């Protein structure tokens, strides 16, 4: 059973999954690309933004599955998810409609809550 956070909206249409542990890395790095591999910035640019743009144009949604990694630095989550609003200027309402952040295990629930919190509190740069 999925433990997606309560604030995660009900989204409809075809799902596009990003399983971070399988599609990106089991050991996510820090915030920016310059400081090392598997950064939040790289994840956002290479995976998250293209999937979200595709979902927004095709009326589907993106489901980001957080499980399976060896822990997230919170700076990674802030850059990946907060950066969607702060850097890429996605509207929070659009993200509510097309982005689902899933933690299938309770061990990743807090990361899911944090990612959603970063989207809600982010401001455009």
């Amino acid at each position: 059973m999925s433990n997606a956070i309560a604030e995660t909206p009900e989204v409809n249409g075809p799902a596009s999954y990003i399983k971070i542990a399988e599609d990106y890395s089991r050991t996510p790095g820090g915030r920016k690309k310059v400081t090392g591999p598997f950064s939040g910035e790289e994840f956002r640019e290479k995976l998250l933004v293209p999937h979200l743009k595709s979902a927004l144009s095709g009326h589907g949604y993106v489901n980001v599955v957080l499980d399976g990694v060896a822990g997230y630095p919170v700076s990674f989550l802030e850059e990946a998810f907060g950066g969607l609003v702060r850097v890429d200027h996605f509207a929070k309402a659009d993200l509510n409609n097309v982005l689902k952040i899933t933690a299938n295990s309770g061990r990743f629930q807090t990361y899911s809550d944090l990612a959603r919190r970063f989207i809600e509190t982010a401001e455009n740069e």
Partner: protein
Amino acid sequence: MDLNGGDTSRHIVSITSDVSFGGSHTSGLIIVFLTALLGASLGFLSNFVLTYLKARSDNSTNIWNKYCDSITVAGNYSSEYWCLPMQSVLPGNASEKAKALKIQGQHLEAKIIGIQQYLINLEAMLDKEIPDADLADLKVAREDFYISLSGGDFLERNGQQAVERARKVQFDAAVYVALVQKGIRERLKTRTILRRLGQVMAIRFAKRKSS
């Protein structure tokens, strides 16, 4: 009349009354014995239940005391990390001191991520122990703590000490520890136990009614 000229019926009555007296005495003893046995069993049972509940409660309290200790340890690692004048990306001509600081910092980064994951692994269990009224505040404090712990410029240091950050992580750790301890203490209060018992009974009653 018997052969000796005695009154048989009188003799029989006498024997019967002796037997009857002996039976009632035995029954009394059995009743006393059973009552004592029942009392001892009830005493043993209640003592066993109380000891079990206390051991369970002590065990649970120990787990959460260790959990709080780990929050403090995580805060200490993090403060040490934020106070290091380390640089995540070293220039080609980096000094030996800069290299040593980077290694020390990377060691702390690994420890912080490890202990953060340990704390997160136990959260689902912790949340079941915390009364609903305290859970929302606890979750906010927890998120603030993790943001201080490994947010911001974590893994991305520029060679400057971040002393404010080092203080903030200690503050957030202290708030989180206090709320965990408050929640656990609240759980052990009698009225909380009774309320939970009431909730369980209400749920069972509702299930029975619906089926």
